[in-house]
């Protein structure tokens, strides 16, 4: 069999986290009784007029800036006409030939670049529930602002799609324009996919898989659809250009509509909305108050702070955790701080949602103070670890948990005295060590730690004990 490669492009819909809908003052809150976040504008009542939410323009431009897009200073809205019950007006207000943002990019870890064709703003449709031969419609989501991010056909594997989506998700969360909750549908994507023999320069016929709202389904759907197309071509058939749906139950894609019903949206300019103008000053301001983007943060953690790549990625994955880390690691050993966060703190935030939320029991300054004591040699790692656990339990700072004596450290003389006592008081263990049973050293170290309330440095004590035992 010939070798094939898959080629895919993505259209990603991201719900913006504005307080109100794109064209009216109804709330965008998720999960209420049906048709309670609605007004005559977002239910398409005759005679109503839309008015564009300023924040939607701002958020879309911020998304464009964060993905390296060119921002169009003049932009406009268009009507995309189609008749379906999720759209009460029988058209969606979207952007056709003058989107707000064009020509951006997202870099992948394998060195490849995914080119972003455009980012435009539009209104979300209502939600349909199919029951008993009827379709029930809830317009709460109708009119919620979306950005649609369209890429060039630059993907060559499902892994690349996943990494792109994760980066996009993290970027949008970091700049605060969307919470990107896939389970609530605030990030969904359509994949355009085709296959061709390796080495071929022309594109094969593509199919589009609609509305995937989980990474797992996306990966399964892409794998299935790639195989389906290859099998079809290898068995002498041809791929038909069509829209397909991924069925979660069967794990297969199925045809939704074919080319004969090809989209004909008869776009035309939305006459109820005026031109959108974005000024250079606005762009400069939004660029200036853009937070550090995930890829820059990752670079800083691995290069400047010398964190292992896996640790850095884990911190960067949760923007609030990363911010906490940055605050705690100011001027102290970053690896120490990272280890406390990824160890003790992560154990107390076991789920992804808890890490996202990052409701920390203690302020970052407390962890910073602890790390400073370790750096200054005032506190050994064992005592620091138990102190941090106590800190997390009680919410108290280091100064409340450790006495002056704890922090005084042990001078060499005091440590030597304790070690001598350990040897004198544990003759059995000493005999075992002399007989070659290294494990018995644990008993002596335990004695030393108990006597010093954990202040002794285990490494130094071991060296000293070995010397004493001879």
């Amino acid at each position, binding site marked *: 069999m010939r070798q094939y490669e898959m080629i895919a492009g993505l259209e990603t819909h991201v719900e913006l986290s*504005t*307080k*109100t809908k794109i064209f*009216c*003052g*109804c*709330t965008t809150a998720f999960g209420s*009784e*049906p*048709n*309670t*976040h*609605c*007004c*005559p504008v977002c*239910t398409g009542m005759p005679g109503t007029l839309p*008015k*564009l*939410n*300023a*924040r*939607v*323009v701002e958020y879309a431009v911020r998304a464009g800036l964060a993905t390296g897009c060119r921002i169009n200073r003049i932009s*406009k809205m268009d009507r995309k*006409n*189609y*008749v*379906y*019950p*999720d759209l009460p007006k029988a058209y969606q207000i979207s952007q056709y030939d003058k989107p707000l943002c064009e020509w951006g990019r997202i870099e992948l870890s394998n060195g490849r670049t995914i080119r972003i064709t455009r980012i435009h703003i539009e209104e979300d449709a209502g939600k*349909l*529930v*199919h029951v008993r*031969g*009827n*379709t*029930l*419609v*809830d*317009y709460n989501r109708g009119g919620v602002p979306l950005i649609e991010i369209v890429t060039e056909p630059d993907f060559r594997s499902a892994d690349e799609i996943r990494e792109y989506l994760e980066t996009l998700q993290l970027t949008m969360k970091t700049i605060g324009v969307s919470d990107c909750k896939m389970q609530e549908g605030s990030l969904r994507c359509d994949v355009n996919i085709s296959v061709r023999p390796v080495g071929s320069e022309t594109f094969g016929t593509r199919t589009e898989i609609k509305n995937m709202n989980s990474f797992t389904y996306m990966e399964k759907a892409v794998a299935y659809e790639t195989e389906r197309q290859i099998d079809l071509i290898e068995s002498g058939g041809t791929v038909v250009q069509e829209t397909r749906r991924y069925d979660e139950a069967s794990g297969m894609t199925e045809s*939704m*509509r074919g080319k004969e019903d090809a989209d*004909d949206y*008869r776009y035309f*300019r939305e*006459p109820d*909305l*005026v*031109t*959108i*103008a974005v000024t250079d000053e606005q762009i400069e301001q939004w660029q200036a108050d853009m937070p550090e983007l995930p890829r820059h943060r990752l670079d800083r953690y691995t290069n400047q702070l010398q964190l292992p790549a896996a640790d850095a990625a884990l911190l960067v994955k949760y923007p609030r955790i990363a911010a906490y880390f940055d605050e705690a690691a100011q001027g102290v050993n970053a690896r120490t701080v990272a280890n406390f966060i990824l160890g003790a703190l992560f154990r107390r935030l076991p789920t992804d949602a808890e890490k996202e939320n990052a409701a920390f029991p203690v302020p970052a300054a407390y962890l910073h103070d602890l790390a400073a004591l370790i750096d200054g040699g005032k506190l050994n790692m064992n005592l620091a670890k138990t102190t941090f656990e106590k800190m997390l339990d009680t919410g108290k700072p280091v100064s409340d948990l450790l006495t002056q004596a704890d922090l005084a450290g042990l001078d060499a003389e005091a440590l030597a005295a304790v070690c001598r006592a350990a040897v004198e008081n544990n003759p059995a263990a000493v005999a075992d060590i002399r007989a070659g049973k290294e494990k018995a050293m644990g008993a002596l170290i335990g004695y030393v730690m108990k006597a010093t309330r954990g202040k002794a440095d285990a490494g130094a004590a071991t060296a000293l004990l070995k010397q004493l035992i001879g």
Partner: protein
Amino acid sequence: MITQEEIRKIAKLAKLYVSEEEIGSLTEDMARIIAFADTINAAADTQEPFDSIQSLQNALREDVVRPSYPQEEILRNVNGGEDGYFRTKQSREG
């Protein structure tokens, strides 16, 4: 010149059911409508464009929540709907 085939397509996209007898007269009507639009276009070429959406910019709204309508008010035109929803015939695809 608009064709009968185009009229059938437009009707289909608009989910309008048009009988074969109507096609001829609808095609003539549509031809007249388009001719009228052409007249306006030709006139627009001769003067300054009278286009408020071109000349106006940024009629924007602050992102401040206003109360939505009560559910029963929203559903009043459909006799109260069903369980808080609008109800339509089964529709798939799209």
